[in-house]
């Protein structure tokens, strides 16, 4: 599969396309699905997925891809902030380039694809084989990484306070998961829904790392961005196991994440504190995962994944609503209220101050 989907930019509205999905012949359905998949309207992708789920078989476009393998491209921005002029340095199947940032991005994209495919049968961010693009060497000493709506962008860090942002596979998983969240729940990036959005990225970012290392919940370190702070071994940006303890640095200050609703931070900075208050749902996931036991992506992660895809979850969902959604997902997966799994999820939210 080369480049973007060869989608026909229809002027047909999403609901007409959906009818073609349901009633058209094989070729018509394929084209309609591809158009729906690349449609910028997030609602149409959710609706498409809902239709597919209701229908049964998940793959109605076998000619495009079977699913199961990523299609990766890594591009080098050459220290500019202009991705449009970036150079392709590695495409799917190419050998390592020797440039750490490029190779870490390539491997991290693969590890993220691998978690979503192996654990949840999700074929890339859009569940339709979307090409994974990572841009490295963005900017000059740029202390950040982000998802821009279609691809991941990584800075090199300034070298004194921060290392390169590809250094930690959970960062890559975190960024890609923003794409998944955008397609599924579209959680608004502000205040509580924004903190949920952030938390979901930390959850699956951590699961990417755990899955790659084959770690069970009690073996994982539950740290996000370990190794990102320069010359600070053992420190990380966030801890899901112990929010507020990840870093304590003479220049960067101290980790300010809360682990409980009573310490929720009201602020106008950081889009209403989305990277701070994510500590609360992060900790809930950690508690659920360790109390359920085993590999965290199998049950706890599946519950969270299904909650994210629940059609009733609104973009403006508060913590409490999401918590209820995870309980509903637990039951829909077949774990009744007497099960270890249900009790673990229920208790996890209670422990962070959300008694349901």
């Amino acid at each position, binding site marked *: 599969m080369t480049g973007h989907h060869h989608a026909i930019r229809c002027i047909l509205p999403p609901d007409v396309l959906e009818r073609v999905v349901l009633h058209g012949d094989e070729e018509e359905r394929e084209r309609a699905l591809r158009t729906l998949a690349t449609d910028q309207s997030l609602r149409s992708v959710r609706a498409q997925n809902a239709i597919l789920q209701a229908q049964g078989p998940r793959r109605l476009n076998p000619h495009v891809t079977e699913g199961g393998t990523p299609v990766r491209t890594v591009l080098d921005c050459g220290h500019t902030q202009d991705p449009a002029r970036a150079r392709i340095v590695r495409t799917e199947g190419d050998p390592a380039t020797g440039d750490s940032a490029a190779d870490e991005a390539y491997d991290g994209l693969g590890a993220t694809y691998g978690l979503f495919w192996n654990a949840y049968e999700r074929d890339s961010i859009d569940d339709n084989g979307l090409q994974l693009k990572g841009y490295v060497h963005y900017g000059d000493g740029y*202390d*950040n*990484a*982000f*998802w*821009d*709506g279609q691809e991941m962008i990584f800075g090199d860090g*300034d070298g*004194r*306070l*921060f290392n390169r*942002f590809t250094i930690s596979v959970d*960062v890559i998983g*975190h*960024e890609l998961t*923003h794409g998944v969240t955008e397609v599924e729940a579209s959680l*608004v*990036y*502000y205040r509580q829904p*924004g903190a949920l*959005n952030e938390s979901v*990225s930390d959850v699956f970012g951590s699961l990417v790392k755990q899955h790659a290392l084959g770690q069970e919940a009690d073996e994982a370190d539950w740290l996000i*961005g370990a190794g*990102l702070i320069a010359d600070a071994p053992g420190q990380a*940006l*966030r801890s899901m196991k112990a929010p507020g303890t990840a870093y304590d640095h003479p*220049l*960067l*200050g101290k980790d300010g994440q809360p682990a409980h609703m009573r310490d929720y931070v009201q602020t*106008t*900075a*950081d*889009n209403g504190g*989305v*990277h*701070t208050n994510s500590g609360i749902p992060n900790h809930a996931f950690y508690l659920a995962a360790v109390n359920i036991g085993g590999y965290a992506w199998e049950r706890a992660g599946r519950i969270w994944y299904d909650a994210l895809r629940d059609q009733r979850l609104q973009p403006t969902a508060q913590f409490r609503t999401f918590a209820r959604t995870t309980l509903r997902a637990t039951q829909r997966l077949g774990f009744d209220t007497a099960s270890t799994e249900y009790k673990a999820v229920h208790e996890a939210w209670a422990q962070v101050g959300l008694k349901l």
Partner: protein
Amino acid sequence: MTGEDPIHIDLERSGGFAGMSLRASVDTSRLPPDEAGTIAELVDRVDFGALAAGAGAPARAPDRFQYDLVVRRGKERHALSLGESQVTPELRSLLDHLVALARPR
């Protein structure tokens, strides 16, 4: 430069993947003349009117920085709250300069 009002700038850059806040405060009357001159030049190149008119609420995009900036000079006052994606090239030059000042040596 003499006779011109000093420029006061307060910047907070928050968010980003690390979710940390960086603050910078500048009073050009307390800087060496060439430093003060550089800042004045950078400020002069920014079209604050256009930025204020163009931005409704700040853009809120995953893991991008949020900039809260107040620039005062004499009777002029500009207050902006912007997402990283809304930053123009001229504003970015000013912001990068301020961030570098805020960074410990």
